[in-house]
């Protein structure tokens, strides 16, 4: 297994966690970026201005909440605002795609540094000792673990990066709770696996 030294990897992650919100206005979150990007293909979300029915409902709700004086003279979006919105949306999509591509590129760079060692299913000596009897079944095992991670991420409203790095650093209660749960359950699961597989 090839990895960067802990001090370098930690520094890079910390640097991204601090600079990413400054550049994009969003907290770092891998699953959130992934979901939003996939959502474009799933639903092809269009900017709201061309959605007349939604707009009318919004106007009614806004008027009900704040009164008519809160509404601007016209509710029809100007061509300029639609263009600006479309550009914002495009920038947003490109930024999310670049973020995810950057993760892959970062992994490739680390491998390049190590001279591209051959791909392996192993995660290290300890892994080999515990799972040596599984053979090719380790593939479905990984896939199943991935599904469980996805379900947990969906339930928690974020992943280890969004909650564990960004949310905890910002002191968000939901992230503190989520991080405590997934770290705690992870530790417990590892100990149980150790007992069962020893």
């Amino acid at each position, binding site marked *: 297994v090839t990895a960067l030294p802990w001090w370098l990897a930690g520094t890079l992650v910390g640097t991204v966690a601090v600079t990413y919100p400054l550049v994009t206005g969003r907290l770092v979150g891998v699953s*959130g970026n992934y979901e939003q990007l996939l959502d474009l293909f799933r639903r*092809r979300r269009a900017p709201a201005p061309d959605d007349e029915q*939604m707009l009318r409902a*919004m106007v009614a709700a*806004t008027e009900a909440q704040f009164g008519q004086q809160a509404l*601007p003279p016209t509710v029809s979006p100007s061509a300029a605002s639609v263009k600006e919105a479309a550009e914002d949306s495009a920038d947003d999509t490109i930024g999310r795609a670049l973020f995810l591509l950057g993760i892959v590129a970062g992994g490739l760079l680390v491998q390049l540094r190590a001279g591209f060692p051959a791909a392996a299913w192993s995660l290290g000596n300890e892994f080999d000792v515990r799972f040596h009897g599984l053979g090719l079944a380790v593939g479905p095992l990984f896939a199943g673990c991935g599904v469980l991670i996805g379900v947990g991420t969906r339930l928690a409203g974020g992943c280890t990066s969004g909650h564990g790095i960004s949310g905890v650093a910002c002191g968000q209660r939901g992230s503190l709770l989520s991080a405590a749960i997934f770290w705690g359950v992870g530790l417990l699961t590892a100990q149980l696996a150790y007992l069962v597989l020893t």
Partner: protein
Amino acid sequence: MAEASPSKCPHSGTCRLYPRMKLQALLNVWKSMYCDADAYQTCERFKRSERGERVADDLLPNGVSVAEPRK
């Protein structure tokens, strides 16, 4: 230990309604009253997100759901 709260909603980067508010002048009032003010903590979207609940796209900060037509 008391923590200082940001004056802008920390979820604005991931909120699905926030981009809509950028599109329409009529929605600026929601932004100024909720997202860009300390009142974001009373936003129903914020509260549900903090509780880890699913937040519908058509849920307004005051808790009213606006029926979004299917596409």
